[in-house]
């Protein structure tokens, strides 16, 4: 059974180490399932017998195991150092408005960082998602082909700009030009409290959010564009034949089909916004308190705080920063889990089974 008249696919006649290792492997599941399978169910049909199959199975299973191992190592490292730090914390880790972990009586808490991270990311999403979806729809359904190519290329270029460059642009160009918008918001929406402005420099959460929106725009646009492009022609023609206008076709067949894809795209963008470091650190003037107004400077985010405090931190201070990193990790996990739940709940209606 091992040696057939046909040559192995991969074309390597020498026995490779993976090959040798695989000979000892018990019943082997299909390669595609390797990462998820901890206890392999016996599946005779999926057993790899050809050398090329065995090598590929070994590589893919090894990659899956490596991924799990790396994730576990990160989780263990973060948890261990975080517990060390939190056990010495004299304040409340969740509610203290202070970051002084280096002294012998360390006091630090993540309230300000959690608030700043969530608020800046939410602002970025509120601005970026509608704009990105609109760009993606324009590129796939409105723009002539001559135009959509160059625009898509420019959007891709946005993703290639390093974040420190965004930070510099934000600090030197965006911040000085925000004054007009800020005073307009203060005049007409100042009564809400969150848009009141005391006239300080525009190094505030709103500016950070706008900058983050520009940064996450390309990833959301690109993924959405791919999803919208895959809408089956039959669905669009179904709407057209009923007498739908172009916008109605988009509403009836394109957006419902692309819904879960747009959610995934937004989560990718949100992940980047939550973890963005240099751009935030360059634009924001950090303080360790929560500003009620989005326009007044101050606040901080997890990543920005780690970047700016790491240099001066001692061993204990670093552990405290790692503890805050763990919280960011958990927030990101929760956001991703929520997104998956939203997608799964409507699976019955998704375009996948059509």
């Amino acid at each position, binding site marked *: 059974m091992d040696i057939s008249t046909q040559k192995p696919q991969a074309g390597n006649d020498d026995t490779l180490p993976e090959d040798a290792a695989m000979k000892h492997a018990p019943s082997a599941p299909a390669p595609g399932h390797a990462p998820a399978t901890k206890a392999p169910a016996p599946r005779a049909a999926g057993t790899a017998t050809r050398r090329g199959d065995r090598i590929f199975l070994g590589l893919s299973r090894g990659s899956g195991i490596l991924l799990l191992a790396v994730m576990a190592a990160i989780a263990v490292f973060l948890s261990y150092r975080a517990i060390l730090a939190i056990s010495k914390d004299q304040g409340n880790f969740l509610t203290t408005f202070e970051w002084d972990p280096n002294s012998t009586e360390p006091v630090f808490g993540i309230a300000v960082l959690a608030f700043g991270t969530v608020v800046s990311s939410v602002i970025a999403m509120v601005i970026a998602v509608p704009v990105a979806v609109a760009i993606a729809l324009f590129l796939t359904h409105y723009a002539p*082909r001559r135009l959509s190519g160059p625009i898509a290329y420019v959007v891709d270029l946005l993703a290639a700009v390093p974040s420190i460059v965004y930070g510099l642009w934000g600090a030197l160009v965006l911040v000085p030009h925000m004054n007009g918008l800020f005073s307009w918001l203060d005049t007409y929406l100042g009564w809400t409290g969150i848009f009141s402005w005391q006239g300080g420099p525009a190094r505030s959460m709103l500016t950070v959010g706008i900058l983050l929106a520009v940064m996450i725009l390309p990833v959301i646009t690109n993924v959405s564009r791919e999803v919208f492009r895959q809408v*089956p022609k*039959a*669905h669009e*023609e*179904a*709407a*057209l*034949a*009923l*007498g*739908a*206008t172009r916008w*109605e076709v988009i509403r*009836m*067949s394109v957006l*419902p*089909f692309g*819904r879960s894809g747009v959610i995934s795209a937004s989560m990718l963008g949100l992940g980047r916004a939550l973890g963005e470091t240099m751009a935030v650190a360059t634009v924001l003037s950090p303080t360790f308190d929560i500003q009620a107004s989005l326009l007044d400077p101050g606040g901080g985010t997890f990543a920005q705080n780690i970047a700016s405090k790491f240099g001066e931190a001692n061993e204990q201070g670093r552990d405290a920063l790692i503890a805050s990193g763990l919280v960011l990790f958990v927030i990101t996990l929760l956001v991703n889990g929520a997104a998956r739940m939203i997608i799964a709940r*409507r699976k*019955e*209606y*998704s*375009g996948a*089974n*059509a």
Partner: protein
Amino acid sequence: MAKRIDVSGLSAFYGAHKAIEDISMTIEPRSVTAFIGPSGCGKSTFLRTLNRMHEVVPGGRVEGKVMLDDEDLYGPGIDPVSVRREVGMVFQRPNPFPTMSIFDNVAAGLRLNGDYKKSGLADIVEQSLRGANLWNEVKDRLNKPGSGLSGGQQQRLCIARAIAVQPKVLLMDEPCSALDPISTLAIEDLIGELKEQYTIVIVTHNMQQAARVSDRTAFFNLAAIGQPGKLIEIDETERIFSNPSVKDTEDYISGRFG
């Protein structure tokens, strides 16, 4: 309600390629007209010019005249969207909106038009589903997704969706080619019932089907690959299948080519 279609001197293009050339015919109201012919002869393209779906394809272009009673479908100032509300279409593969329930699928066209009373919506949906012989099978699961139905049921759902907006004409582009024989029979019976109220045009590759369901049959052919398709003849179905006036038609029907 049903309207007559008068086509004169119609040609359709994909970019520079001429797909069909100089087609003239009259399609009678309250009857079924079948289009037959070999693959690539332009019968589907011609069908799609009748509700201005041809021009949706990039590079799609039409010359000539299509009259729906006394309205010129390609006249200046005619909105293709309003044409498609009068001339409904059923496609080769059943294409219910996958994200919508059965009820919403049927109501989709009505909601687009907006000219209905909210209270009357359920009645129209029921009538349309009854009209498509689907009501008894789905009345207990109207809020389930349409994509959960069988292929034949999905196609009848698409017919219900098309007739819910009360079109003047119903175009069917090989509506049974993706279905099993039993579902095909159900659709054919339905076509026989629908012709009481609508002008029906059906493209089919199945000549027995054309013979079974249609009153008149049009035969299309093309001189060679790359040449535009042409209408060879259109006549009573009985005549086409027993004693056609053009030899090509007889050759095609008797299976000598195509």
